[in-house]
């Protein structure tokens, strides 16, 4: 918590620095003005909301029907890193950004650093909502800054282990509960003709989730600058662990999210997947032949008896600084992400797992899931959600950090270099990127 508090002050300094550098002289200092001016507008307002959540219109329709004076218009685009974030930045520059935007937690700091987000800390309704959200998600949107809120948490991706219960029991292997057991099981699975899992060469945020669980903290700040530590001892431990499995050829390494990858799960080749809650749908759709054969267990632990989980994904509903109606925008964002009707619809239409504490108790998330042999799998994730450490901070240039690390990971799985090499290189280039954007960073 303290670490992120410090990180926040750095973010603020760098944001001001950037604002000072950029030509728009009139917006410096308006950050504080926006915070205090979080007052309801008079008369009817129309808000625009850009998001790539599928069928969001259906959810918004419910709101629009009930709130004739606050009408929300949905706009869309490709997934954030595929273009929508860049569009947001362009629109902020041109002054025609939407009122609300869908921003994943790992992208939120980059918008904060560019001073693109409205501070909702001055909206009484937002400040009051704090206790409704799972602690770590709230930290993602406040960056630990006292009295400031830069978005409303929307969904979370607590991680657990999906595994093929049928194959494990047939081979007489107990489902692993620690990473040591997982590695031992990997040998036996290989002997039985499969792979314990597929190591993803491009889902760096999945790897971040694994490091998150192990205590790795990639970004932090002291009083006035960023520290990048993608090779801290805990992250190294995770990297060495997977490197070992790769070297021994105990994991497959096909590119993820391809038909080939689906096929590995569909044809009994891959036995487990340590993934986020939304992965439940990925397996069910990608590997339909395996219906009824999967189960979900907590993530393997680094020490027996520990209870720690990682997180992969999750996003917020942020209000852009250029919005003329931050109060109404905040009102809508809170309804969207805390009300039972909206959360139920979001889960049903878009498979989002709520970031609120109460959200875990939605009727839809209490039921047994047919694909998983009627196991109430969301109970496992609800538990995991409470075990995610709250002090993981994302850096302000994750898009390029991911790209760099992914290049190294791709090389590592084909035998050129190691995962640690990849992380070392990604760290160096991340520092370079921060410097080139005039964001203070420790060498």
């Amino acid at each position: 918590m303290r670490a992120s508090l410090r990180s926040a002050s750095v973010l603020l300094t760098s944001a001001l620095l950037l604002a000072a550098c950029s030509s728009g002289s009139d917006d410096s200092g308006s950050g504080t003005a926006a915070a205090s001016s979080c007052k309801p507008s008079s008369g009817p307002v129309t808000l625009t909301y850009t998001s790539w959540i599928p069928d969001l219109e259906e959810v918004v329709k419910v709101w629009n029907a009930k709130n004739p004076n606050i009408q929300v218009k949905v706009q869309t685009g490709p997934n954030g890193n595929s273009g929508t974030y860049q569009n947001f930045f362009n629109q902020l520059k041109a002054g025609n950004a939407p009122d609300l935007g869908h921003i994943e937690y790992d992208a939120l700091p980059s918008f904060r650093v560019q001073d693109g987000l409205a501070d909702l800390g001055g909206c009484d309704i937002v400040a009051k909502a704090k206790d409704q959200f799972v602690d770590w998600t709230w930290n993602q949107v406040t960056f630990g800054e006292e009295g400031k809120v830069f978005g409303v948490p929307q969904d979370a991706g607590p991680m657990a282990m999906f595994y093929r219960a049928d194959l494990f029991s047939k081979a007489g292997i107990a489902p692993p509960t620690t990473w040591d057991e997982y590695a031992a099981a990997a040998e036996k699975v290989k002997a039985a003709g499969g792979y314990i899992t597929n190591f993803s060469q491009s889902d760096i945020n999945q790897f971040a989730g694994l490091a998150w669980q192990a205590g790795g903290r990639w970004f932090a700040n002291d009083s006035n600058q960023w520290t990048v530590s993608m090779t801290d001892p805990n992250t190294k431990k995770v990297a060495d662990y997977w490197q070992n499995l790769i070297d021994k050829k105990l994991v497959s390494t096909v590119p993820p999210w391809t038909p080939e990858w689906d096929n590995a799960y569909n044809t009994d080749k891959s036995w487990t997947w340590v993934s986020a809650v939304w992965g439940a749908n990925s397996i069910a759709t990608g590997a339909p032949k395996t219906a009824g054969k999967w189960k979900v267990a907590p993530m393997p632990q680094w020490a027996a008896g520990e209870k720690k989980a990682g997180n992969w994904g999750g996003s917020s509903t942020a209000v852009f600084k250029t919005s003329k109606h931050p109060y109404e925008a905040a009102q809508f964002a809170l309804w969207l992400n805390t009300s039972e009707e909206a959360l139920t619809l979001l889960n049903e239409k878009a498979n989002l797992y709520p970031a609120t504490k109460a959200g875990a108790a939605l009727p839809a998330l209490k039921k047994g899931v047919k694909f998983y042999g009627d196991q109430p799998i969301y109970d496992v994730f609800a538990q995991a959600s409470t075990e995610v450490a709250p002090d993981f901070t994302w850096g302000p240039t994750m898009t390029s950090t991911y790209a760099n690390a992914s290049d190294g990971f791709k090389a590592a799985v084909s035998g050129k270099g190691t995962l640690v090499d990849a992380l070392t290189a990604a760290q160096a280039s991340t520092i370079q990127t921060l410097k080139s954007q005039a964001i203070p960073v420790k060498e």
Partner: protein
Amino acid sequence: MSAPAIKVRESILSRTAAMIIMGVCTVYFLVPIWWLFVGSSKSREQITGTNPIWFADFNLGANVRELLEYRDGVFLRWMFNSLLYTGGAALLGTLLAAMCGYAIAKYRFPGRETLFNVVLGGVLVPASALALPLFLLFSKVEGTNTFWSVFLPSVVNPFGVYLARIYATASVPEELLEAARLDGSGEVRSFFTVSVRLMFPALVTIFLFQFVAVWNNFLLPLVMLSDERLFPVTLGLYSWNSQVTGIPELRGLVIVGALLSITPLVVAFLFLQRYWRSGIGAGAVK
């Protein structure tokens, strides 16, 4: 075609080698399309579970229906938009390019060469480099996220002007224009009734070039548009494809959508390839 005076007998060996190379190239270029076609005919389960280059149960009809019904038929809307953006811009752009190139070729006026050189300089600027400046310009007049924000920039075609000038110089004789003038035809009328006909092969080439260029200019709509109803099909499919991580159901739709979206291009090329080839030849020689 009369038989050539000297008959060169090719050796069997070189003929075979040429055939093999052509064959390999053909296969290389056709396999992705074949895969697309086969993939489109499979049900969602079979895309991953069966041989990727051979058919399983033939479900093309059902897949197409699902695609057309998804989100109230937004795919059809995208196809229509694409045709409007590309077809409309290519038609109008060809007309403007033809008029401009013709004027530069046939009329002497001060600054003619400067004008032509500036246009020629425009050929060197890639369309994608202009997307962001155009976005900022359109933002100034609050014109982003409209049909016009994609359509208007697409109409501009400096390469077409270049081609039209070259072709007009070569294929429209001064004497003919002189004769038309003597017969009392105005300049505009001469252009449409005489010159356009003579320039026709070049115009088809310009049209095709621009059609393809606009179709491929993906960045402009990506930057300009945020209303799904205005998307061209390329951007729409790209959006879906960028979401398959969260919504794996979309993958099948993207495959069928890709197949349907290339169909108009394939048809256009099959019908117009004759002009296309002669146009490229003309551009290359002159």
